[in-house]
């Protein structure tokens, strides 16, 4: 079998879908967060695969930026979770409905 870019994109799509499934089904805010990280990672894999496919470094540079933004996002998100846990004693996202209309 020839290993074309389609295989990588397929794997990326599967990982992204699993991440989306985690966001939609799990109720623990930290697990939801980890699923989001997995979706970002799937996108990164697609970027690197296309960079290889097109013979262009730009895809890899973009992955570099995505990882940086993900690091900042995790820091802020976990700080939010810690703050919510302090006031509500729970990180179940169904119980965090303070801003519900």
């Amino acid at each position: 079998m020839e290993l074309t870019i389609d295989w990588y994109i397929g794997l990326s799509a599967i990982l992204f879908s699993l991440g989306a499934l985690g966001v939609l089904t799990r109720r623990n805010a930290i697990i939801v967060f980890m699923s989001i990280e997995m979706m970002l990672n799937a996108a990164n894999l697609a970027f690197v695969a296309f960079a290889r496919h097109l013979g262009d470094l730009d895809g890899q540079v973009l992955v570099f930026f995505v990882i940086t933004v993900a690091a900042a996002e995790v820091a802020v998100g976990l700080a939010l979770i810690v703050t919510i846990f302090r006031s509500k004693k729970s990180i179940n996202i169904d119980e965090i409905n303070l801003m519900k209309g």
Partner: protein
Amino acid sequence: MGSGSVFIVFILMALVSVSAAVMMLLSKNAVHSALWLVLNFTAIAVLYVVLNAPFIAMVQITVYAGAIMVLFLFVIMLLGAEQLQGISGVHGTERYHRAVAFVLVALLVVGFGVVIFNGGTGGGETAVIDASPVALGLRLFEAYVLPFEVTGILLLAAIIGVAVFTRRKKKEA
């Protein structure tokens, strides 16, 4: 490496990363989930090496599997949130929500599949380019200086935001 061995590496790493992802979703204990996710990230780092992206692979391991996941584990253990609300513990209308989620994800997979197997991406493989850290750094600081600076501002904003969030008010302390 020959193309046959590259294919075997891809299949192995694809199996490892997908099964690690599934185990992450199914684990009751949040610490186990985090460790499965580390395995997932590491398998993808191997694929980055295969895809001629050695620097990204190292960044993936140090920043993602290292720093970010340590932060996750730290918060999980700080909150004592290991056993909170697994995939079970369904009550009432949540069953309905879960069914909708599975249907949406199935549609997502079908959509991706149709795109990939009908059109494909076309075009042959191009020659391997120089993707050493030097080449990547030159590209970053020549073509992408402004985004790089903006990223610095973003990180500064994140630092300030986190400091403000987690600061206890003096009355409480």
